[in-house]
């Protein structure tokens, strides 16, 4: 049986970064509280011994305040078979949480990650764990930041005080990791750690402060870096709010601009010029003209559209979106944006930190819904999930919008986004009224601004690319193949006729526009892409785009909702989104006709 090591610590101290270093895996790392929302496990090899490593969400104490923290707390408390010490009344709010973790044996070692740049923040939980007599080892991470801030931590004194080994590390560069491995091995070897010789420190704030006094020193006067100046600029309403508007615009323009460039100059020539023609030639040589050949290279031929759509329409924006998102995530700007907007977000029932899952939703809805676990109430989770399903287009769908609309009319495209925000605000206001929940009283720690590191950004982008190929492009090719079969066998036309009253009568779109409604159930972008080849008026484009936006979020999202909440809630979302898509679409078609 492999030994198990648990990585624990306060939020944003670099647990996942250390996990990635030790296991060679790649879990998400970002500069804000609540990046990890579920546990991740991997293995590492030390001295020919295979050891399991578990990364959990960060938590400040053993009293969980959100679903994500619960995952971490249950790992320790469940495993050690002891009750959580309740030093204060539990502020746990996730009564409905049903995180099930297989707790057959306690971890053989807890590697406790402390942030040297925010030393006090993690000490209380560390003392709680010591009280539980869990086998511990401390990794004093982010020691580069501590040095930069003029902090000095007496590692020997700390180790003495706690009576456990302490290893300084810098996870982003890998410094100290070898030393950490050695210490892990040593700690695992000397199993029955005996701490009896020394009086056990109790988990009290007095003890936390005593430790800080004795081992933590600060250079006076403190080195005032540029970091503080930037922080003030970005975090104060003035000029923070106007700057936020500028930053958002730059981000939006950057994503669209870089994406269009990649498409025009790299991916389109590559696929249209080099990859697709030989495939088409090959197939037309091998297969006689007819249904089968058309399935491969006809109108919806999956070797034509099935390659063009995922790789020349969507991929460019996947690359540009995640490049920009990674930069923003690693800089620490997100939590600052969150507090700037907190007051406004409160009105739609969310704390400002709701901006983080919503932003992730513009990439893909699944991580967005998962990330909502770090929000502190069930109400917030529900609101974020509904908003993401309803009106946040994933990056594939945004790529489709750009392809459909940008060339015809940039104004329509911008209107689609403005309209989506209008609907989100309205939906938020309504949900805030009607979903029950306690009053928001958020408190968040704002992490230091960090300069994003190129190696980190590139690595994350590469992972995204791989994930997009397997989880985005391949299913899309499959869906196009389904479309090709439906189309060539005449089933699509029959379906189109069946729902034609809805499409032509109610939405006032051509009969062929039934295709996106059928395919859109499979994938979000397919509720838009088939419209490209139709000859639509501007109003029809807008109607089609809006219907596509609100229409069923893809199957994978519904599955995630069913898993994270209840299957019934997924059904509710399905009905809500589809219903709203048709109602709003029909109204737009009619109202628009009055003005155009």
């Amino acid at each position, binding site marked *: 049986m492999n030994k198990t090591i648990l990585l624990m610590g*306060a939020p944003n101290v670099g647990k996942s970064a250390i996990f990635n270093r030790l296991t060679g895996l790649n879990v998400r790392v970002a500069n804000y509280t609540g990046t990890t929302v579920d546990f991740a496990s991997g293995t590492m090899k030390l001295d020919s011994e295979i050891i399991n490593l578990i990364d959990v969400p960060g938590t*400040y*104490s053993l*009293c969980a*305040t959100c679903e994500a923290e619960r995952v971490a707390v249950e790992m320790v408390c469940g495993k050690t078979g002891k009750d959580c010490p309740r*030093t*204060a*009344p*539990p*502020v746990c*709010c996730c009564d409905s949480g049903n995180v099930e973790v297989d707790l057959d044996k306690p971890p053989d070692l807890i590697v406790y990650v402390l942030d040297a740049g*925010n030393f*006090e*923040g993690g000490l*209380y*939980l560390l003392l709680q764990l010591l009280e539980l007599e869990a086998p511990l080892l401390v990794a004093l991470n982010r020691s580069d930041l501590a040095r930069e*801030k003029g902090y000095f931590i007496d590692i020997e004194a700390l180790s003495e005080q706690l009576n456990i080994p302490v290893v300084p590390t810098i996870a982003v560069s890998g410094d100290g990791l070898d030393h950490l491995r050695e210490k892990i091995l040593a700690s695992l070897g000397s199993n029955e750690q005996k701490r009896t010789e020394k009086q056990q420190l109790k988990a009290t*704030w007095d003890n936390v402060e005593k430790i800080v006094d004795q081992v933590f020193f600060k250079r006076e006067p*403190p080195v005032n870096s540029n970091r503080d100046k930037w*922080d*003030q600029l970005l*975090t*104060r*309403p003035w000029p923070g*709010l106007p700057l936020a508007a500028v930053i958002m615009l730059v981000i939006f323009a950057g994503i669209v601009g870089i994406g269009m460039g990649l498409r025009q100059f790299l991916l389109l020539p590559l696929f249209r010029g080099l990859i697709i023609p030989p495939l088409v030639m090959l197939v037309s040589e091998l297969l006689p003209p007819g249904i089968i050949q058309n399935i491969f290279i006809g109108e919806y031929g999956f070797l034509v559209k099935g390659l063009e759509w995922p790789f020349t329409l969507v991929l460019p924006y996947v690359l540009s979106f995640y490049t920009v998102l990674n930069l923003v995530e690693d800089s620490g700007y997100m939590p600052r944006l969150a*507090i*700037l*907007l*907190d*007051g*406004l977000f*409160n009105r739609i029932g969310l*704390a*400002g930190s709701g901006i983080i899952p919503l932003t992730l939703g513009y990439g893909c809805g699944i991580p967005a819904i998962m990330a909502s676990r770090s929000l*502190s*109430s069930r109400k917030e989770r529900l609101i974020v999930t509904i908003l993401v399903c309803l009106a946040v287009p994933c990056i594939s769908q945004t790529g489709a919008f750009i392809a459909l609309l940008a060339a015809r009319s940039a104004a329509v495209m911008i209107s689609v986004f403005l309209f989506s925000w209008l609907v989100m605000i309205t939906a938020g206001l309504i949900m805030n009224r009607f979903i029950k929940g*306690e*009053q*928001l*009283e*958020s*408190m*968040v*720690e*704002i992490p230091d601004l960090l300069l994003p590191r190129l190696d980190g950004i590139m690595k994350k982008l590469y992972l995204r690319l791989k994930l997009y190929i397997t989880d985005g492009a391949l299913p899309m090719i499959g869906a196009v193949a389904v479309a090709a079969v439906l189309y060539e066998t005449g089933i699509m036309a029959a379906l189109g006729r069946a729902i034609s009253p809805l499409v032509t009568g109610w939405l006032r779109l051509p009969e062929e526009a039934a295709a996106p409604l059928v395919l859109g159930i499979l994938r979000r972008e397919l509720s838009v892409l088939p419209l490209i080849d139709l000859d639509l008026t501007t109003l029809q484009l807008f109607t089609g785009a809006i219907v596509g936006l609100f229409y069923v979020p893809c199957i994978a999202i519904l599955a995630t909702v069913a898993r994270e909440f209840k299957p019934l809630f997924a059904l509710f979302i399905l009905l809500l989104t589809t219903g709203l898509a048709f109602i709003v679409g029909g109204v737009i078609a009619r109202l628009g006709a009055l003005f155009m």
Partner: protein
Amino acid sequence: MALKVEDLKLNVERDNRVSLLELSTGNNGIVLDVPDNIMLSTLGIRKGKMLHCRGHQLFGGPVVIKTGDRQIALHRRLAEKITIQPV
């Protein structure tokens, strides 16, 4: 979030004590009384701690404070429940 708020026993002799919400930007204060909430404690907002007000966000947004070198955004309703002695 269910907060167990300790009753604020107002001490009339010390009339310059105010709630954290009333501390103006750039000023410091020492925490006299704080709701019993483990999250607040772990964020460094405990009795006897010095807080520095970094600013108030618009639209009824949070108060941003510093304790030591940690920066924390607190909802107004919470800030109101924290009593401090300006210094």
